[in-house]
């Protein structure tokens, strides 16, 4: 008997006897015998917890790309920020980790209040009045935003800047086959910012104009131009925003965005090889009944005490079924709570300072790289920027790995460029060494 289930042999016997059965197999009498396996699964037999742990430690050691052994300048939607110990500690409390979706609010005030606070922080960050309690990741948030825009405008045409993360655009295309999206793209200028005049000029009406802020290549977009295009198309403006950038830059909501989405990984969540991350989603208040995902609202209990509850549930799939605003059920609550704690740990001033450190680091690297002839495409960038390499960027990246550096990310289909990110976790020494190594490789 594995140690996982509590039952003793004797108890199993007794329970079966209580049921008038003589074996566990009998429990499956309702399954046609042809479907009941007589052979065990062709999988290894059980391991002790320590052996499993050692196995996974070996997996870990087989990844040379950990912070302690590889200095990373990779970003492109996932950033190597320093994590706060407090958020890690508080987010790993079993009361949060092992709870279910707060369907019984009387015993779920912890999760509910933490999510209410999270919603408030996201709304303030994005400059919009309401936010939901999280979606799967940045890409999912974008897909849901487009679905919402389609639902609101009854249009299926969406205009997407090529500055939006290629993975997000791919996910949008994937899900767009189901929702019959017609996706048009906006080209980029030489400075990596979107050319808002590059789409079809007939202004036929669209569900949404989508732009990233800053974009995948690092450029800070001109949102007023995006807003103008959206207006001319009678479309919603959806902005994919980097939350850390908003410590320094004006929020998309105040610049005219109708929906702002983003990836929340930067807000205190480990790189984790890509997940679990955190989809952020905020919108204008008028869209509240079209929102995807869970919403936590404030109310009172029988005794008049302030309390919190999931609300506007009739939007959701378990009640509205095929007419739901989204099929989302599970979200990323734990990550949302952890991000909220991390944001509170950073606080108003820390968040501002952090953004500034990221800006300074990236611009310092850019200035150093300019010295060796790698000039960023734009000077309007925040913590990430793009340089053209001389020759294959993939090869260069490979060679830089031997020096102990992850030399950014090679954009899909653009093997002569590197997208480089610098967070507050990169010291000046690391940046200088990186530039020196790169100079050697390029010589």
């Amino acid at each position, binding site marked *: 008997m594995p140690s996982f289930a509590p039952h003793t042999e004797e108890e199993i016997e007794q329970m079966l006897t209580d049921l008038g059965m003589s074996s566990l197999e009998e429990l499956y009498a309702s399954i046609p015998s042809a479907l009941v396996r007589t052979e065990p699964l062709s999988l290894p037999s059980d391991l002790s917890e320590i052996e499993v742990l050692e196995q996974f430690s070996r997996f870990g050691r087989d990844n040379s790309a950990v912070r302690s052994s590889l200095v990373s300048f990779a970003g492109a939607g996932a950033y190597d920020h320093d994590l706060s110990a407090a958020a890690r500690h508080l987010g790993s409390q079993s009361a949060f980790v092992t709870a279910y979706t707060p369907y019984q609010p009387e015993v779920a005030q912890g999760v509910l209040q933490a999510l209410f606070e999270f919603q408030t922080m996201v709304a303030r960050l994005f400059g919009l009045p309401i936010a939901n309690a999280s979606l799967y990741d940045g890409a999912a948030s974008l897909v849901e935003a487009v679905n919402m825009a389609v639902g609101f405008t009854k249009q299926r045409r969406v205009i997407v800047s090529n500055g939006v993360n290629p993975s997000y655009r791919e996910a949008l295309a994937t899900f767009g086959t189901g929702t019959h999206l017609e996706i048009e793209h906006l080209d980029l200028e030489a400075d990596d910012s979107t050319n808002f005049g590059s789409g079809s000029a007939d202004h036929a009406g669209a569900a949404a104009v989508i732009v990233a802020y800053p974009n995948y290549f690092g450029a800070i977009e001109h949102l007023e131009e995006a807003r103008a295009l959206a207006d001319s198309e009678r479309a919603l403006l959806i902005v994919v925003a980097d939350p850390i950038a908003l410590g320094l830059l004006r929020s998309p909501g105040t610049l005219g965005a109708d929906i702002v989405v983003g990836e929340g990984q930067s807000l205190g969540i480990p790189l984790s090889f890509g997940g679990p*991350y955190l989809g952020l989603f905020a919108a204008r208040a008028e869209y509240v009944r079209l929102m995807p995902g869970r919403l936590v609202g404030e109310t009172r209990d029988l005794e008049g005490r302030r309390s919190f509850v999931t609300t506007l549930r009739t939007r959701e799939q378990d009640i509205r079924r095929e007419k739901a605003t989204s099929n989302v059920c599970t979200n990323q609550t734990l990550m949302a709570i952890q991000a909220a704690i991390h944001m509170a740990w950073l606080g108003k001033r820390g968040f501002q300072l952090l953004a500034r450190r990221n800006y300074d680091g990236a611009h310092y690297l850019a200035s150093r790289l300019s010295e060796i002839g790698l000039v960023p495409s734009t000077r309007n960038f925040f913590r990430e920027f793009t340089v053209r390499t001389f020759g294959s960027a993939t090869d260069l990246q490979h060679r830089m790995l031997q020096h102990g550096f992850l030399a950014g990310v090679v954009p899909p289909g653009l093997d002569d460029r590197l997208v480089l990110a610098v967070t507050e976790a990169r010291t000046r020494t690391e940046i200088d060494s990186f530039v020196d190594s790169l100079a050697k490789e390029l010589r």
Partner: protein
Amino acid sequence: AEEPTIFELSVPTRRSFSLRNSEVPSMDLSEIQSWVREEAVELPEVSERDLVAHYTRLASRNYSVDLGAYPLGSCTMKYNPKFADQVAAIDGLTNVHPLTPPEAIQGWLRLLNELEHYVCEITGMAQATLQPPAGASGELTGLLIMRAYHTSRGRKPTKVVIPDSAHGTNPASVSLAGYEAITVPSGPDGLVDLAKLRELVDEDTAGIMLTNPNTLGLFEREIREILDVIHSVDGLAYYDGANLNAIVGVARPGDMGFDIVHSNLHKTFATPHGGGGPGAGPVAVVEHLADFLPGPLPRSLDGGSSYTWVAPRRSIGRVHAFYGNAVVLARALAFMQYLGSDGLRTMSELAVLNANWLKARIADTFEVAFQQPCMHEFVVSAERLKAETGVRALDVAKALLDAGFHSPTVYFPLVVHEALMIEPTETESPQTLEAIAQALEEIVASARTDAEAVLAMPRNTPVRRLDEAMAARKPILTEDQRQ
């Protein structure tokens, strides 16, 4: 006492943050000046001491599996073994950027490849994507594979069949996949009405979505006949793995004839639910659908000595920004390795044993909806109690909170009135099952002697019943929407 919000605890210039000392010079902002914000974002300003106290107190106001039983039907709230938390904290797994060249992430690629093998062996499928970050995402992924399959064959069927007992995610996903959800009713035995299905299905049928056992906890005995109907019109059969915990090692969706399967790793494979997520919903398919899987897939080209990413030939495209909830996937694999082949089967057997035993134990307390043996969960009705005392399923659920247990699922599935849907999972002991049964008996007995007392429950919880209508009437979703 009410806990203040973190904003109410805020005091200007107070702080928790501790940032690395900057060695980088301050750089010129003039290039971006027009974008620079004037006011900092109004995040709270609290000391780390108050931050920790706040979220520790919030945690103390939340029920969780670690505190006690959670017999929440269809949610599989089993105990999550603690060693998996250590797996999830391994530096070499958590501190890895997803866009690292394959040579530097061999551990991760191997791990994911191994998990894919486990998922395929357990479901009886050929290949799998690990990208979907949750069950509903898996459903939509599977349906888009279904769509791509039909498209590849030059067909454009428009309908997907779903039983009336299905989870809401199923019809919602069908809509998002661009299909029309067609409901097939359950027969009086709680199973799909095969005759009705035959009437519904035609050339315009893209496929079917089924949970088996279904949400009533019953195994669809005629599953092969059902799927034959679908396959006869070149439809595909989608297996919703929400209830996989009933049959691991006992029966496989692939052997039943399913073409596409998702598995909720956070249910069956014990990754913690996190208050609502993160989850993971890998989708596995039969060999002839493998080319449509989202990419990239972790594959060895040299028999296992090294791994790289491979893109499926006719992929529907990516469904997650990266490779899914990777650390959740790691936890699930760890759990599978821990239980091993035999342990995985025993897990399901004991989940089914617990459900049947508890069903029998409370058969005199509530009306059991369907008499045949159940799988991992079962549904009872509080209709008689409601008629006799006015105490509804919801009230029973609330009263159970006072007894120190989480509530069962109520009013689902829709096909049973005043439904209480109970899934004890295999991790609860017979003693705990007995305690739950006694608590339910006592609630029913109280309802008969003093219904008002039951209607006023819960009393021992951090807050009592909430005014949900008030919350919905004029929603206050943020601190700033409060008057």
